């Protein structure tokens, strides 16, 4: 700082201005020095002139400024219109859709299995609903939710009408229908849209002794889970006569909705047995133990099965407690009650 530069007198403003300028100069000098140090270091370390290339390379990588081409000289949508042949299905697919198509086609990728399963499910429903239109109308009147779901299902399956996979799976199913047990289940799925009404007692019995038989509200499919107490069920059901389908249905009803009381003692009798045979996984015989403990009657017992009419009320009560204690999440009460409401 020189003496001449220093204002010894005068307003503070000039002093302030001078100060401001000085501070500014200091900042600029800092910036310059910073640059000098950087450059000097680069020179001494040998990387200062690295960014300079020879003329030839410069020409090669010059920025391109032509229409239809990016700055590197590449064409933008060169491969857009090309088609590739899928190695799996031998179809010609557009290039941009090739990767997702392969994913679905080969059955790899995250969603392909999900979509396939969903398609199969809706195809089952489609075939079922297509064949029994009239009966479904009746049901639609009674239970609106049921009907709405049917409509939704229809719409969804309509979407897949034209896909190749749909025709594939349909053909597949038709071929199998006559042959295996699974076909039998398809047949029953087909029929349970109407309800157990149309099945004869023997058919129902054979069906229910091998499978779970619960109709899901959502998919309208019968649960195919094999009942584990097949052997036990056989023993019990020997002495167990099902005079008509109604008893069976109330039996099922009783199992799933404990708040609905049985209409007659016969049905409660049926329900006793049914509940016993129906709880294989959790407590095979302790359920019976509970029964006998609770009611004090000869309700339990694996051998005899049928109880006397006198113990019907107490047994019904114990059954209520049983059912409430062991509610199975899979069995959907509302759908079954809705079907049987119709009959009642």
């Amino acid at each position, binding site marked *: 700082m020189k003496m001449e530069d220093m204002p010894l007198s005068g307003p503070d403003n000039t002093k302030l201005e001078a100060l401001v300028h000085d*501070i*500014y100069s200091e900042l600029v000098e800092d910036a310059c020095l910073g640059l000098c140090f950087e450059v000097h270091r680069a020179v001494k370390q040998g990387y200062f002139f690295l960014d300079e290339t020879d003329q030839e390379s410069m020409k090669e990588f010059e920025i391109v400024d032509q229409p239809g081409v990016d700055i590197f000289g590449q064409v933008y949508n060169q491969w857009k219109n090309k088609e590739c042949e899928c190695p799996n299905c031998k179809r010609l697919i557009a290039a941009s859709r090739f990767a997702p198509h392969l994913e679905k086609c080969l059955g790899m990728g995250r969603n392909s299995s999900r979509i396939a399963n969903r398609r199969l499910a809706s195809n089952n429903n489609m075939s079922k609903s297509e064949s029994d239109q009239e009966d479904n109308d009746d049901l639609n009147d009674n239970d609106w939710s049921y009907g709405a779901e049917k409509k939704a299902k229809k719409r969804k399956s309509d979407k897949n009408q034209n896909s190749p996979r749909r025709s594939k799976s349909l053909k597949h199913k038709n071929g199998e229908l006559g042959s295996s047990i699974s076909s039998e289940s398809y047949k029953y799925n087909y029929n349970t849209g109407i309800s157990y009404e149309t099945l004869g007692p023997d058919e129902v019995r054979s069906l229910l002794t091998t499978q779970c038989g619960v109709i899901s509200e959502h998919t309208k499919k019968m649960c195919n889970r094999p009942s584990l107490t097949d052997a036990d069920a056989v023993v019990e059901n020997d002495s167990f006569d099902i005079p008509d389908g109604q008893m069976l249905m109330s039996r099922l009803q009783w199992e799933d909705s404990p708040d609905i009381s049985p209409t007659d003692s016969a049905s409660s009798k049926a329900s006793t047995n049914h509940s016993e045979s129906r709880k294989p996984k959790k407590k095979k015989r302790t359920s019976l133990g509970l029964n006998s403990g609770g009611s004090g009657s000869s309700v339990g017992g694996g051998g005899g099965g049928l109880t006397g009419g006198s113990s019907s009320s107490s047994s019904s009560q114990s059954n209520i407690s049983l059912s409430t204690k062991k509610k199975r999440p899979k069995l959907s009460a509302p759908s079954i009650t809705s079907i049987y409401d119709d009959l009642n």
Partner: protein
Amino acid sequence: MTPFLDVFCTQTDRHNVFYPLLRQIMNKDSQMRAAINQKLIEMGERERLKELLRAKLVECGWRDQLKAHCKDVIREKGLEHVTVEDLVTEVTPKGRALVPDSVKKELLQRIRAFLAQHATL
């Protein structure tokens, strides 16, 4: 030799009279300056101003210009023998001159604002 010093010819005069006088006059200002500088640093304003200036200089191409000038200097002096002092003496004046007016104005504005807010005079 400044005109002031001519008045006080002898050494002793200079040391006993002039310099203290000068120091007294300068002290106030330098004290103020020192105080302001200290405030600038303490409040982080100096750092912010520095960053602002650097960013603006890069943006306006000042840095690249100056770097190109550095290259010339280096080529002139020879790659092996260039020193920091060479660079500084060659580059700083040019650097000062090359700062665009808009940047200069903005920075002065900010400094003035800071002083107006924080300087007690």
